[in-house]
């Protein structure tokens, strides 16, 4: 499996770090040897709509099995405050670089 996957960003809950229209390259191997850390930008499967992806920032790591994610633009974000923590197996990868 190739480690890098690209995604296009939509919606504005991650402004100003990520703007709609940006591309992100995601490292799918980032968490093979280390655990997600608070502050990491990650792409996860949407727990409410599994066929789509969300890009959010890790806001807390309650244990090794799950993380909480939040949008930087808290006023406008739907995230773990609404749907709770996300199992780490639902993390696609860590954002490696942003292309704008």
């Amino acid at each position, binding site marked *: 499996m190739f480690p890098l996957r690209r995604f296009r960003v939509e919606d504005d809950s991650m402004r100003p770090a990520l703007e709609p229209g940006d591309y992100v390259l995601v490292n799918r191997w980032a968490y093979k040897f280390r655990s997600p850390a608070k502050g990491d930008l990650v792409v996860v499967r949407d727990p409410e709509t599994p066929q789509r*992806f969300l890009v959010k920032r890790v806001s807390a790591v309650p244990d090794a099995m799950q993380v909480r994610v939040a949008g930087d633009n808290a006023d*406008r974000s739907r995230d773990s405050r609404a749907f709770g923590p996300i199992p780490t197996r639902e993390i696609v990868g860590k954002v490696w670089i942003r292309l704008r």
Partner: protein
Amino acid sequence: MSLLYLLARWLDRISPAPIAYAHCDIPCGIYDPHHAQLAAHTVVRMVDLINQLEKPGASSTPEQRQEYTNKLTRYIATKEQHSEIAKNEVRILWGDYFKPEHVKTFPELHELVWKALKSGSKARQEINLQAAEDLLKATNDIASIFWKTKGFETITAKAPYPTERLTVYPKFK
């Protein structure tokens, strides 16, 4: 615009990149305490109407009793619905709009939301004018805080409805 960005965009023609949503709640940021206030007014009005309704006496006809029952049932049904609407609107403001920094500035919010929900339940369960008034007062107090967090002053004026109770309105510039 970087070269890599142009490359990514070019790659989209071959195979489109999946979308990662920086997803927001829909509709983003559209909140107004007026719904809660309006529903509370309706509850007050229904209690007033129920109290004004003439009870059928011992000599009343079946038709009069039927009419009484019909009116009473409709008032009660509306009171049920609108106390629930008021409670739900308060829950939306509490759960989705108000943020920790608002609560820090207005610590009384906890108590006010609590009061609104409790008096809302009481107004729903009973024919209790005081509970309905308490519900309206709590939604007014929440509205006054809501508009302050939006940077607007408020005025308190008699509502232009049959209830004529004092109501908090924003003073838009």
